[in-house]
């Protein structure tokens, strides 16, 4: 979707504000939101791509106003309700629905080290033919899907060179909508800064973007 989250190349967002000795979390509630998101993921009712899309669906003005973890908790509540794990009435009342069975959490403390050590790989070890070869010139497709995509707007229609084939990965555009993993090759594509931004950019500089087969066409 052409949302405000796709901000590469936008102007007017203000100065970067690094914080000295920044804590990992600025408040305990942020750490709880972070942990809740990871722990609830273990129910496998949603996936990484659908979680990202849920945050992208936050209306633009709200998206820009909210802090990072406010976006997370807002999207998390939507996922809990959409997946049926929690009802809207339970969210509103803060109380478990009368007569509902108590579940057993899939992520217990003893399983946390394995979750962190193993991660959730998006690589699929299956044989899929790559559509492009290293060194080949490609163009990022000029497409504007209303759903989730990782094809950044600033690259659409631009030409680049395949620098590296990363292998076969889950395709976010379908996976985010629970329409299958559609595994395909992901490439590191080098775009000259001037191809993306015109004469204002340095002739030496480049942007490397990781792009799936379905985002590319021969140039």
């Amino acid at each position: 979707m052409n949302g405000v989250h796709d901000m590469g190349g936008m102007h007017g967002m203000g100065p970067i504000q690094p914080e000295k000795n920044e804590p990992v979390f600025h408040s305990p509630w942020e750490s709880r939101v972070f942990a809740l998101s990871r722990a609830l993921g273990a129910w496998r009712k949603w996936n990484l791509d659908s979680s990202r899309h849920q945050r992208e669906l936050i209306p633009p003005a709200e998206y820009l106003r909210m802090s990072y973890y406010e976006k997370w908790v807002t999207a998390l509540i939507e996922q809990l309700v959409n997946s049926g794990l929690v009802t809207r009435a339970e969210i509103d009342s803060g109380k478990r629905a009368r007569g509902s069975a108590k579940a057993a959490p899939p992520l217990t403390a003893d399983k946390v080290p394995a979750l962190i050590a193993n991660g959730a790989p998006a690589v699929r070890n299956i044989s899929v033919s790559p559509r492009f070869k290293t060194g080949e010139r490609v163009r990022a497709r000029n497409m504007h899907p209303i759903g989730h995509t990782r094809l950044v707007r600033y690259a659409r229609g631009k030409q680049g060179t395949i620098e590296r084939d990363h292998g076969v990965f889950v395709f976010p555009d379908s996976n985010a909508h629970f329409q299958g993993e559609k595994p395909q090759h992901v490439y590191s594509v080098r775009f000259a800064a001037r191809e993306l931004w015109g004469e204002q950019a340095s002739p030496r500089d480049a942007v490397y973007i990781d792009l799936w087969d379905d985002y590319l066409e021969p140039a």
Partner: protein
Amino acid sequence: MTRRGFIAAAGASAAGEAAHAQEHGHSHDHQAVPSDLALRTKALESLLVEKGLVDRAALDALVDTYEHKIGPRNGARVVAHAWVDPAYKRRLLADANAAIAELGIPTGLQGENMLALENTPKIHNLVVCTLCSCYPWPVLGLPPVWYKSAPYRSRAVIDPRGVLAEFGLQLAGDVEVRVWDSTAELRYLVLPERPAGSENMTEDQLAALVTRDSMVGVAKVAL
């Protein structure tokens, strides 16, 4: 959702606040008035525990891991080792996951597919995620706020030299700047240049020099 519902529910569980703070070894004292978000999150956590959807001890373990165990010191160890061991550096650049694992650092969650990018006098690498907040957790921990925020995400790709200057790093015109937009599940670790004058330092001393910012590519390592 109604905010009133959250707040009412949070009020009901406020008695548990002190016990909770004690249990998790952190104090909520610095927030004289708990924010709306703190109350909403507390109510949500209580509901999810009551429903058996999450295990509070698992939440504590997750928080503890990212607050205390996984952070940029991991990445600094990788960088320092690559500086003193040329064979290790080659392995790191060829297969970052295996090389990082050699040092006993697991490359799991949000580091399943790592790539190391070597900075040289003529090539400067800079990492961003313009779409969200992708970041190599196993080696750098969770990202700082500026990395996740609109100013950095919007400008790193269109004006990397301006961004670097804002961080105090002026690059000569003959240096090639490579910006890596983390749009897929690859996670990038910048291998910064070893600073001149560090020839006689031990690996531990070198690791102490390596900053988080230098491994994102917004700074150089200085003595």
